[in-house]
């Protein structure tokens, strides 16, 4: 009996017992579909994290105010106004620091001649586009002169542009931020949503001096900034520069090297590695759950194949009586369980690809059917079928034909 014939016999047996075959392979179907969806979600998540990291700028270090204790009450990170413009200038003069910008932020309503919109206003230095690795789609960014004169100019994000100027060119027009007129001189390129679903294009950038003097309420400390962002000239200098900044700020804030600092330094490489390893851990977790379900599916196949061998004992006896050698019986049942598992795997692949498309539509990440994982899933499921089908097939092949023929 050759393989093609065994395959035809197996398919015949599977089709004759459609319902049972389907239930038998359900475990495999779910396992394979789960593996494929998991892999594609993991790949999508990693790709979008990588994109975010690249958006942040590759060698960027962020300094935020640390916790401070006022009369015993600890404020959270970023809660204290401990960073100043002076800190920023000092950092900008450190070796290997390519560019630095302070960030002062507030949320407020802005009004154009076409509409109004609440958004985040960021006060920054002219180095902002370089540090944030963010280009303009139109117009220009503000200059050192604008900062020196606290010029009422702004650069708006794509979302703000579309909200305030639905059908018009914003460049050169004037918008009111807290009733202060600002001239729009540039529009940023579109970035889209970040990992947490926040719209990154929903912002307006103005010279920090203009924000501090014209928009901020007077009870805020005049030179306090929310964040200092700077980029390092080369990734290899990241650790050194981070240490230098730590020492510099401790000296400026008069904090002993052993004491808790009133600032916190984060660099994008740390953020990136944490995010990537989180994504990887999640993917490994999901993949192991999926693998377990594949193995459980295999046990399901073994179970049903054992039942099938018992049910078909007479058939086996008959096949032996008409001259089937043991190996032909072994092959028949082995091919049957492998075929079952492979058919289940194929159904699982289809469901998995559909599931991945749905997941990518919901999670807004790009999905491309991954051929190696599809082939891998198919090969693995037929291997599961052969592995778990062997013991029932062997049982069938070693039956005594006389006993088998007498079975009711």
């Amino acid at each position, binding site marked *: *009996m*050759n393989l093609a*014939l065994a395959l035809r*016999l197996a398919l015949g047996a599977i089709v*004759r017992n459609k319902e049972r075959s389907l239930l038998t392979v359900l475990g495999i179907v779910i396992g394979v579909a789960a593996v494929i969806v998991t892999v594609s979600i993991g790949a999508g998540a990693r790709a979008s994290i990588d994109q975010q990291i690249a958006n942040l700028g590759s060698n960027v270090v962020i300094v935020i105010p640390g916790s401070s204790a006022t009369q015993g009450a600890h404020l959270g990170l970023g809660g204290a106004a401990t960073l100043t413009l002076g800190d920023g200038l000092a950092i900008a003069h450190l070796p290997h620091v390519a560019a630095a910008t302070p960030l002062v932020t507030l949320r407020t309503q802005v009004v154009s001649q076409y509409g109004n919109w609440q958004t985040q206003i960021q006060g920054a230095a002219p180095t902002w586009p370089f540090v944030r690795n963010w280009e303009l789609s139109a117009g220009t960014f503000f200059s050192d002169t604008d900062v020196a004169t606290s010029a009422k100019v702004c650069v708006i994000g794509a979302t703000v542009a579309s909200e305030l100027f639905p059908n018009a060119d914003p460049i050169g027009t004037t918008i009111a931020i807290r009733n202060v007129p600002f001239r729009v001189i540039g529009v940023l390129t579109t970035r889209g949503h970040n990992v947490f679903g926040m719209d990154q294009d929903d912002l307006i950038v103005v010279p920090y001096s203009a924000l501090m003097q014209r928009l901020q309420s007077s009870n805020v400390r005049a030179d306090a900034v929310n964040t200092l962002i700077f980029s390092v000239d080369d990734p290899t200098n990241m650790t050194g520069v981070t240490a230098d900044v730590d020492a510099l700020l401790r000296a400026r804030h008069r904090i002993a090297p052993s004491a808790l600092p009133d600032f916190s330094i984060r660099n994008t490489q740390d953020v990136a590695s944490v995010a990537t390893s989180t994504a990887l851990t999640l993917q490994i977790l999901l993949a192991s759950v999926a693998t377990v379900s594949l193995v459980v599916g295999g046990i399901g196949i073994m179970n049903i194949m054992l039942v099938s061998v018992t049910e078909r004992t*007479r*058939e086996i*006896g*008959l*096949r*032996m*009586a*008409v*001259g*089937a*050698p*043991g*190996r*032909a019986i072994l092959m028949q049942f082995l091919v049957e369980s492998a075929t079952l598992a492979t058919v289940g795997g194929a159904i699982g692949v289809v469901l998995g690809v559909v599931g991945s498309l749905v997941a990518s539509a919901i999670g807004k990440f790009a999905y491309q059917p991954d051929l190696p994982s599809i082939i891998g899933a198919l090969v693995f499921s037929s291997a599961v079928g052969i592995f778990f089908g062997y013991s029932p097939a062997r049982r069938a092949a070693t039956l005594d*034909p*006389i006993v088998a*023929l007498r079975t009711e």
Partner: protein
Amino acid sequence: MTEQALVRTIALSKVFAAGEHRLVAVDRVDFTLARGEFVSIMGPSGSGKSTFMHIIGCLDRPTSGTYLFDGVDVSTIDADARAALRRAKLGFVFQAYNLLPRTSAIENAELPMIYAGLSSRERRDRAVRALLDAGLEERHHLQPPSELSGGQQQRVAIARALVNQPELILADEPTGALDTKTSGEIMTLFQGLNRARGLSVLMVTHEASVARYSQRIVSFLDGRIVNDVPTERYVAGSAVE
């Protein structure tokens, strides 16, 4: 010896040992079946006739003694060689038909040829011819066993036994599940195949009326042959029934 016997056993024995109990199912049986002969084996349950039949059918091996099939000693060959012998030279017909369910008559008849490695075209041709020879009309060829009468099912089983052109047909109570009329038809079919083609048949049966269709009747009791006579000389009750 003028003509070599198709089946010849010399002091053939089969002993089943279960713990301390020893059951001698077949006890030093000498038996000969000539080519072209139609022989019935009769005997009560437990007389050893079924075990003897299994050994002749190469489904089982003797504990001692010699079994020559067509002059070749097959008493000690291994399982694969026995399977090959069953495939090439033996055909089985059972009381319960043993057809595959949800499988057409033609595919049931094709079954032995799958293991003989014939092409699908030749399998189909031979299966059709065998079904017609066994008296199953063409309109029934695509029907599964569940749609056929008992007699028709047994005809499919007989066709299945014929397709590999065996030397010997082994029939184990072939009419046991059939009514008298159908039994007669099936026995006439066996008789016809035996007479027209010289096909050798060895049949186990309980019923003297069925055994009458054969040429010779062999009676078993307690694992031994107690009577072996041509049918016309057989007297019912001469052996314990």
